[in-house]
């Protein structure tokens, strides 16, 4: 784990520098009248609630040893978020890993694990086998946001990567850029879609649907900026890992008890 707790690393000054340059250029490009118009809309106090995004930073912990592959998370996610019920569109899914005695690794995820798992896909002798839930890593440096040409996907102040489905042009560059295969095009709207950590739930203090639906607490959700949060306990008591750390995306989904074969 490169960094357990959020915070600015050594690259702060460089980031600040880039920001200054960019903001400078943008202020030239974006007419002042646009900025003035937004003030009138009253959006600066978060749609009339007392919710303050800057005071939160959401993250998820996944304890692989606890996952029983029941697929309730996938089912709940599809229902909560109206995800098209075909085996090609998932905001979260569960993978089954089977390492055989002859050293092969077989992975499968029939219908994303939504209907649970049936018999093993191979007759080979099993060395070990386990389930791994996957979900958008809500990266601190999200490649999908970096490549979006129009600003239709972005990272909120509380650390969630969202899509603006009314502004997305459907170029699919973000799908190519995501190393984790987390994005898809919703057929009806032809816009990109992905896990939002159930943003409409978490800003109201509820848990994401997949966490709510996990019967074994394999998924832990919380606020890294709160001292008494399940995610802080999770980080404290587990040795954690993130997926594809070499790509420097700085995921906000942390895995405990994970296997070397998981990618």
């Amino acid at each position, binding site marked *: 784990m490169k960094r357990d707790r959020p915070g600015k690393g050594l690259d702060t000054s460089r980031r600040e520098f880039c920001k200054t340059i960019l903001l400078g250029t943008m202020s030239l490009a974006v007419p002042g009248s646009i900025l003035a118009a937004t003030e009138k809309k009253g959006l600066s106090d978060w749609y009339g609630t007392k919710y303050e995004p800057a005071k939160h930073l959401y993250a998820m912990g996944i304890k692989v040893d606890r996952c029983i592959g029941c697929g309730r998370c996938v089912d709940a996610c599809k229902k909560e978020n109206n995800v098209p019920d*075909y085996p090609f569109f*998932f905001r979260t899914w569960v993978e089954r890993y089977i390492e055989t005695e002859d050293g092969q690794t077989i992975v499968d995820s029939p*219908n994303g694990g939504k209907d649970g798992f049936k018999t093993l896909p191979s007759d080979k002798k099993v060395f070990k086998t386990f389930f791994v839930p996957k979900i958008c890593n809500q990266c601190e440096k999200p*490649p999908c946001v970096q*490549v979006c*040409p129009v600003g239709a996907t972005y990272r909120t102040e509380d650390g969630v990567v969202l899509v603006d489905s009314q502004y997305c042009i*459907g170029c699919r560059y973000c799908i190519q850029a995501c190393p984790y*295969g987390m994005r898809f095009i919703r057929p009806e709207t032809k816009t990109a879609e992905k896990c939002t950590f159930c943003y409409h739930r978490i800003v109201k203090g509820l848990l994401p649907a997949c966490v709510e639906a996990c019967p074994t607490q394999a998924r832990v959700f919380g606020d890294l900026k709160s001292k008494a949060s399940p995610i802080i306990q999770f980080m404290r008591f587990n040795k954690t890992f993130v997926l594809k750390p070499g790509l420097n995306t700085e995921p906000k989904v942390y895995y405990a008890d994970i296997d070397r074969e998981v990618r």
Partner: protein
Amino acid sequence: MNAEIARLYETLKLVVGFIYPNEIELHWNLLIVIYPYITGLVAGAFILASLVKVFKVKEVQATYRLALLTALSFLIVAPLPLVAHLGHPERGFEMFMTPSPSSAMAMFGFVYVWYLMAVLLLEIWFDYRKDFMVLAEQEKGYKRLVYKVLSLFTKDNSPAALSFDKKAVYAITVVGIPSAFLLHGYVGFIFGSIKANPWWSSVLMPIVFLFSAIVSGIALVLLIYMVAVLVRGEEPDMACIDKLASFLFYMMIVDFSLEFLDFVHRIYQSEESIQILGQMISERLFTSLIVIQLILGMIIPLVAIALVKMFKWPAEIRRLSYFIVALLVQFGIFSTRWNVVIGGQLFSKSFRGLTAYKMAVGGVEGLLVSLGFLVLPFVILYVLIRWLPPWEKEHAPSVPNR
């Protein structure tokens, strides 16, 4: 269940190994293959044209205007497949309204406009201004008006003004060469900067794109020139054709070396993805990569040009060989684009399996529409040649003095 979903169920049967569930749909298809192919032709044709103006290669003077018009007709078509493949083409203008400063794709709109407006159109305008004025004098009716508009109602045909035109063309070409490099190197960067995709992610990608673009552009102008000469029943300028073939040969050597370097580098570094990429080449890309791109599109043309040059065969045989070579090169470069764009999406980012590409025939993303986009530039070129004759003999009438 609609056709799109049915196609995904069909593709599901072709999946080998494990892929992430969202990866079954192949997102960038044939339309995105022809986009870098067409852009490459533009950059290549322009760089050929600049040989005449900046590097003073006299032999290929005959192809200068033809190359410019070719570049323009393909550049006009270049963004069409991009727009066509968008989920929301009607929102495409957002790319110009709120371009994301961090996005490689957002900047393409501006690079494109710069290249179209500031380089190609300007250069053609300055080069043709005298012709516009002459033609406006000769023609009658609406044609006269069109030429007047095209000349932007300029009337100054004094030697000083005409020499200003020449200087402007030279200056624009000097700016145009890096711009052409930028245009296509930039297309390479759109792919090369995707760190999530080991098949794309490479610093060599923009350079490989650039040189393969030059190769395809020279080969295209060579083809068009030979066909045009044939159609017009003229005596072909063999020195020009030989020179073009030589440049094609040199550029192919550079292109081949770069691609070979990329290949060796990947094999030698042998990173996490090497096994699945190897499997992809042998199971999914063998025909398009090994047979078409490498053997038909690269090795055979290189050997053929070398043989022709070594043994100094008669003109007819030379012409025939060049013609076949230029055709093969087109197929080869098209395959190169195919292997980059489609290949980069055939393997799972879990590096554990392969998906497949089932090309549709009808529909916006189908074969027919793409063929249309490949034919369209030639239609535009035909119209352009009709209105802006690029031939030396016709455009040398004396300018009436006032």
